[in-house]
């Protein structure tokens, strides 16, 4: 994109294209962690998101009001995940159930190594990716912030790479911005920063680093005021995206005056030369 010609109008119509779909929002707000469906609904509306993640769990007749109905009511697209799966086998079964239940071939693939870190197991993740791509899924791969693994996942045919900024729910922000930049610079598919966002500046940084979108849940759903934080995230993602497109100034080791020296009073000029 020619960043010189981006105007405010352009940033207002800056669609996010992923897996053959066009979304107007680059913020993906997950549904996890909300204290109630009412809070979740307010947060989703405040965030302006069009896409959200859901887990796949046992059906319970007791739940008269459910997430699925809430998303349908608000026209938010559900991206099912394989959260809680520790093996490729479990993740593949969950993905197939999700496809059947939600009538979508999109899957956020999570294959977790251990409960303490909730970080992805690279070997199981890669194996599951290969199988699910072969089965016709659009795989959104939740991955470590490892450029080599991201490349392998891309080669395996993922629809999007979703590197973790920090462990899920930690709110530690982006622990290795350099790796995220490297992943972005090599990516042929969208990069969605996923996990670790704690506050709005983390989301802005992700976009400034060149990520195409940000996925977050806990930072909003567990905030003291979830809808207000959702609004903050919406603005942060937009601001970070605009800053990325605008092109930041290079970092310098020394100062560079922004006021001209020309036209200064003669008596003072000598003091600076």
């Amino acid at each position, binding site marked *: 994109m020619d960043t010189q010609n981006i105007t405010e109008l352009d940033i207002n119509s800056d669609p996010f294209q992923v897996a053959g779909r066009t979304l107007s929002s680059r913020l993906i707000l997950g549904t996890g962690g909300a204290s109630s469906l009412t809070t979740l609904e307010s947060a989703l509306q405040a965030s302006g998101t069009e896409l959200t993640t859901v887990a796949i769990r*046992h059906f319970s007749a007791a739940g008269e009001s459910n997430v699925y109905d809430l998303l349908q009511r608000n026209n938010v697209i559900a991206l099912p995940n394989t959260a809680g799966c520790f093996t490729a086998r479990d993740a593949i079964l969950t993905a197939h159930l999700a496809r059947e239940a939600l009538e979508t071939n999109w899957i956020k693939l999570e294959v977790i190594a251990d409960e303490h870190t909730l970080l992805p197991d690279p070997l199981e993740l890669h194996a599951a990716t290969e199988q699910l791509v072969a089965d016709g899924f659009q795989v959104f791969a939740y991955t470590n912030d490892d450029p080599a693994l991201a490349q392998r996942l891309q080669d395996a045919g993922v629809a999007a790479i979703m590197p973790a900024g920090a462990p899920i729910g930690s709110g530690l922000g982006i622990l290795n911005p350099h790796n995220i930049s490297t992943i972005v610079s090599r990516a042929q598919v969208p990069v969605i920063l996923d996990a670790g966002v704690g506050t709005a500046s983390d989301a802005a940084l992700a976009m400034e680093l060149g990520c195409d979108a940000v996925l977050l*849940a806990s930072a909003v759903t567990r905030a003291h005021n979830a809808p207000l934080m959702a609004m903050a995230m919406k603005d942060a993602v937009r601001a970070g995206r605009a800053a990325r497109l605008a092109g930041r100034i290079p970092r310098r080791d020394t100062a560079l005056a922004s006021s001209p020296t020309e036209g200064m009073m003669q008596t003072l000029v000598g003091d600076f030369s």
Partner: protein
Amino acid sequence: MKSIGIKFNSRELNLDEGITLREFISMQIGKDLDSNSAAVDGSKLGIAAAVNGAVIPRSAWNSYTLAEGHSIELVTAAQGG
């Protein structure tokens, strides 16, 4: 009528012999399902079923007869991620 013992979402249940997966699911979700297992009221179901760890596509629910010892899992979207 003879009954069969099955497992449903980790609970033990006894059902009448000959019940189909479509009939069982219809009972669980409280919605009438037509022979294609679509909701008669036109709503989206948002659920999927697996028997003994294998996904049973909706198109096959009507012809799938449950049997003694079957383990049925019925799933839907929940908050997460």
